[in-house]
């Protein structure tokens, strides 16, 4: 115990580490993960009354073609995919459509509001999405500016309130701000989806502290949405206690998207298992694994 406490303070004092040792966050949390069943056999999660096994949600944009997209979804093991709502191409109605490749009866379509910069546009888009698909589980994102694609939280909160009033179950893309996350939850968001880094940047989770604080404070699922670039970063999100990860570009823009989809599947599982297992405390110096007694 001497080592644990001294390490914690030493690490914090140096300012060299971006975070206190993880032992302080994982072990000292007042509420440990509430797992009712054997996690080895059942570690499913629930959002808005729907139960899912996979904790990876994948996007369906930026792929070379629908076939590659469908193969990546299959390899990722995802049970939910995000989709956008756009005008049909009236001049060429016979071109292939997403639904021909990814069956909405097997994979849950999560309509998004990508490209919407006002609450009004986002609400309009999701009303149409509900009509196109007949479901109320949606992804709300209201963007603030094109350069960063950061969310406009004032408009996002406004839209959340209206959508919840209309019976929608919005999973909400938001800043990694624990206060904003709480406000969204109070407004009826069924999941909080903070960004790890700007959309499409692949920069990884920039602020682990805020993601952890959101997780600790949330009464609804928390998913890192945006910023993950590779499998270790998906694992990192899960190790922070997130319920899931949502990504698109990291898979679609990998040299081999299908292999990366598989990597992300394993990354999410590894991170989740590590979180549930509870990591070892960190030490400042070495600690031998073989016994010191009986040395020849």
């Amino acid at each position, binding site marked *: 115990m001497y080592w644990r406490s001294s390490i914690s303070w030493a690490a914090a004092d140096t300012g060299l580490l971006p975070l206190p040792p993880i032992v302080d966050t994982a072990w000292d949390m007042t509420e440990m993960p509430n797992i009712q069943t054997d996690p080895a056999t059942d570690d499913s999660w629930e959002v808005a009354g729907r139960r899912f096994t996979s904790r990876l949600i994948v996007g369906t944009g930026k792929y070379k073609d629908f076939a590659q997209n469908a193969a990546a979804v299959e390899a990722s093991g995802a049970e939910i995919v995000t989709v956008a709502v*756009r005008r049909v191409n009236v001049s060429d109605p016979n071109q292939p*459509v997403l639904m021909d490749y990814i069956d909405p009866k097997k994979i849950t379509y999560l309509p998004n509001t*990508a490209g919407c910069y006002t609450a009004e546009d986002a609400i309009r888009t999701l009303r149409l999405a509900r009509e196109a698909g007949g479901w109320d589980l949606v992804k709300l994102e209201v963007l603030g500016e094109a350069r960063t694609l950061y969310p406009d939280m004032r408009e996002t909160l406004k839209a959340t309130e209206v959508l919840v009033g209309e019976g929608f179950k919005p999973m909400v893309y938001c800043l990694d701000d624990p206060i904003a996350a709480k406000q969204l939850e109070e407004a009826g968001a069924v999941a909080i989806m903070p960004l790890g880094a700007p959309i499409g940047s692949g920069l990884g989770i920039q602020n682990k502290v805020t993601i952890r604080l959101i997780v600790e404070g949330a009464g609804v699922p928390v998913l890192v949405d945006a910023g993950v670039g590779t499998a270790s970063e998906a694992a990192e999100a899960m190790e922070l206690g997130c319920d899931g990860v949502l990504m698109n570009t990291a898979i679609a823009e990998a040299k081999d998207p299908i292999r990366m989809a598989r990597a992300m599947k394993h990354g999410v599982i590894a991170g989740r298992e590590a979180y549930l297992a509870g990591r070892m405390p960190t030490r400042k110096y070495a600690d031998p694994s073989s016994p010191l007694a009986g040395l020849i």
Partner: protein
Amino acid sequence: MDESISITVNGEARQSGSATVAGLVRELGLKPEKVAVELNGEIAPRSTLENVGLRDGDVLEIVHFVGGG
């Protein structure tokens, strides 16, 4: 319906000979069960598409799901 009417579909002006929204959707080569329709700013529920009449000057948005993140 013998005479055609002038409407706007997804921002483009066009003529239609269809009497109903569902008729227009089919006229465009689309399947009503795969699209959502907004008529003059209001959602036209899919279950009513066969019954909602088209009028001269109507403005429609016809959307569907595409790939997105």
